[in-house]
């Protein structure tokens, strides 16, 4: 089924709060055609590199390009999986270790489609969106994050 979606903003300044996630979940209780939700949360890790501990990651993006690309990804995922809905949020700015920087949320009638759509969306976000992270150490030095 072809579905028309507008380009939506996915960026939010600062961490994604647990209460924001709860609100997002709560809003789905009227969508009674949903049987399964799959959620992925990215959290900033306090990696220790050469004795320096990561205190935060500062995210930046080529926002316009990222939103266009995310729109394409969304369309492709909706074309591939029978989803009821999909929500994506990514942080910009400085996100401390332990805070959440990525929230991907897919819902469908049956679990398999929600899970597969969520996983594929996360992989595509990491591979295809022009977003960068500066890992800021406790001693205020930094290095640029690399995705694996």
């Amino acid at each position, binding site marked *: 089924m072809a579905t028309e979606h507008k380009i939506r903003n996915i960026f939010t300044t600062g961490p994604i709060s647990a209460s924001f996630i709860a609100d997002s979940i709560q809003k789905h209780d009227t969508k009674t055609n949903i049987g399964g939700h799959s959620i992925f949360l990215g959290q900033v890790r306090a990696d220790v590199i050469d004795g320096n501990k990561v205190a935060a990651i500062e995210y930046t993006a*080529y926002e316009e390009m990222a939103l266009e690309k995310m729109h394409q990804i969304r369309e492709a995922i909706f074309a591939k999986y029978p989803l009821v809905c999909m929500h994506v949020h990514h942080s910009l700015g400085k996100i401390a270790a332990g805070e959440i920087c990525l929230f991907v949320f897919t819902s469908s009638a049956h679990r398999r489609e929600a899970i597969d759509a969520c996983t594929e969306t996360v992989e595509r976000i990491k591979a295809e969106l022009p977003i*960068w992270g500066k890992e800021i150490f406790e001693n205020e030095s930094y290095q640029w994050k690399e*995705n694996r």
Partner: protein
Amino acid sequence: MPVQVIVFGQLTDILGHQPVTMEDAPDTNTLIRRLNQRYPALVNAPYIIAVDKKIVTGNTTLTGGNAVALLPPFAGG
């Protein structure tokens, strides 16, 4: 024909955060050659090129209205 170049991520360590204007850049190959002369650290930096928010591969003709962006490896999530 002047072209505006923006960079992101680790490339801001080399070119800074402001758009750089390059004169006489009729195509991306010429543009990169001139950027490499001005910013020698760029030569060994990994990146892809986007023109008007679309990734280009191979030499691409530029006009003054194009927005050129150099994008180091993505690290979202």
